[in-house]
């Protein structure tokens, strides 16, 4: 479990620190204060082997370039990851995490390329016109987990882009990376991801748990099933699942049920698939009526404890944090419990409310956001 996180020169943060992290952490702050960037930082630090995460993060923000002229395909516009949106030789960003008994970090920097023959072969540079006539620089990504480190070097194009085709070639093989990280964006998971996650748990005890979670929104739901066959799958739609209701003979497509059910399904599938890992949720209140939020938090908190999932979520919503207070406890605050972190622009660290302070703030009408 992450106890603290420090980042340097990443996105809008020159330096920033999150301390006193708990098992369940809610990040609040004004628009553009960098809450989502913090989730990304945690994701980059804790995510699975390979650079798929980096690609997903950047593509979802539209941070890529299409090089039509050179027919080079898509490139990640990596300068947006760096503070100030500019890179040069020597530019560097780092994300450091401190756990119970070890440190981990990811550092990304730009250096002048001096390619060895092996690397030239590995990346087919000799056949790549782009690198013959460009100022050759490379992006170095260095992971450190405890005492082990790993490093990959990737060539950057003349636009300082990182061509997609290099990303697939990088696979981390550290043993430490058994933990799983799940990221639920504000617009929730895509249906193909949800079906994939559902397949992981179908006919396991966790399937029952998903049903219980959905019942907090719609008590009539008796069962949920995925229907993976193609006619039901349209990218971006709320399709691929049907539910049986207590008072209905026919099965009902989940898309008929409203956004709250879809959100809840996404959250529960994500958390049960993040066992011993990390769940990141952007704008966790999206689609949920305020009356559903206490139940949502109860589910997330109970599951986080049961499956040892560290949760980081963001919100703008007042009901969202005050309903979190309803599951926090003043009498028995757990030492690794619930925290709220307010992110303020240009401050070097977050303002932390401990579990007990969250309850006090809710009772006294102290605004934490």
């Amino acid at each position, binding site marked *: 479990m992450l106890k603290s996180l420090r980042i340097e020169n990443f996105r809008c943060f020159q330096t920033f620190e999150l301390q006193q992290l708990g098992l369940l952490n809610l990040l609040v702050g004004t628009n553009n204060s960098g809450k989502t960037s913090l989730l990304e930082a945690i994701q980059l630090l804790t995510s699975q082997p390979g650079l798929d995460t980096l690609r997903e993060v950047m593509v979802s923000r539209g941070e890529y370039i299409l090089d039509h002229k050179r027919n080079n395909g898509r490139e990640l516009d990596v300068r947006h990851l760096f503070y100030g949106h500019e890179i040069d030789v020597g530019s560097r960003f780092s994300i450091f995490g401190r756990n119970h008994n070890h440190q981990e970090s990811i550092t990304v920097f730009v250096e002048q390329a001096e390619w060895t023959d092996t690397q030239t072969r590995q990346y087919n540079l000799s056949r790549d016109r782009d690198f013959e006539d460009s100022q050759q620089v490379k992006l170095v990504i260095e992971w450190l987990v405890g005492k082990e480190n790993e490093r990959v070097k990737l060539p950057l194009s003349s636009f300082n882009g990182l061509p997609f085709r290099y990303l697939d070639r990088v696979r981390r093989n550290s043993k430490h990376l058994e933990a799983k990280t799940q990221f639920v964006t504000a617009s929730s998971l895509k249906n193909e991801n949800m079906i994939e996650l559902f397949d992981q748990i179908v006919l396991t005890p966790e399937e029952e748990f998903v049903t219980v979670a959905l019942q907090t929104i719609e008590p009539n739901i008796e069962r949920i099933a995925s229907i993976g066959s193609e006619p039901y799958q349209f990218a971006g739609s709320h399709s691929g699942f049907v539910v049986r209701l207590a008072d209905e003979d026919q099965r009902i497509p989940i898309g008929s049920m409203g956004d709250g059910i879809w959100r809840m399904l996404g959250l529960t599938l994500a958390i049960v698939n993040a066992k011993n890992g990390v769940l990141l949720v952007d704008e966790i209140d999206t689609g949920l009526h305020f009356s559903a939020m206490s139940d949502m938090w109860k589910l997330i908190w109970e599951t986080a404890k049961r499956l040892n999932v560290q949760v980081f979520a963001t919100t703008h919503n007042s009901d969202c944090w005050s309903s979190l207070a309803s599951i926090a406890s003043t009498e028995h605050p757990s030492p690794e419990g619930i925290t709220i972190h307010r992110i303020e622009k240009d401050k070097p660290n977050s303002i932390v409310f401990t579990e007990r302070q969250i309850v006090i703030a809710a009772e006294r*009408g102290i605004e934490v956001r």
Partner: protein
Amino acid sequence: MADVHPKILLVEGRQDSRVIPELIEANGINWGTRKKPVVYIRDFGGYQKLIDPDVISAELQASGLAVLGIMVDADDNPAGRWQSIRRASLKGIPDIPENLPENGLIHIAPNGIRFGIWMMPDNKMRGMLETFLTYIIPNGNQILWQFAQEVTQEAKSKGSGFIDPHCDKANIYTWLAWQNPPGRQIHQAITERILNPNHPAAQKFVIWFKALYELA
């Protein structure tokens, strides 16, 4: 629902939260509206609920806060009261001074927040809000005030049940009972000038308050 208030005063009880606005407004500061007062007062229903390190540090972390003041009663142990409020503040204000200045504490915390403490009646003597209010009884009313105190003592000897620390309360309510109109509540007595909010003896507090909250 929680609102953002840049200037907040924490007090022990309802009485404090009613009296302070009247006192300050009578000293030339427009208190503003109920929704948007110049200083938002939060009362805690008792000293014990207020002097909690987590309460004070949570208050100090409120979104958009610029100034936090705390007003407590010295009661019968001014030195001990200061120590306990100081200890409770340490979590949020690690560099809080050792001693409470006679003119009230105004301290700029490392994060730029203005932090103040006033201990009723005067940061030094035993007593409470009501003790402070006895200071602002109009000068022309002293004979009656003397008499009110004597009568209260006599009532005590005839079995009146109030406890000794509440002597100042009993005195001032006795005195208020004999004004015109009789028996106004304290904050009304200020508005109606039965008490004199511009009395020189009130000025030390008013100056502290205006300076802490930067009111002109």
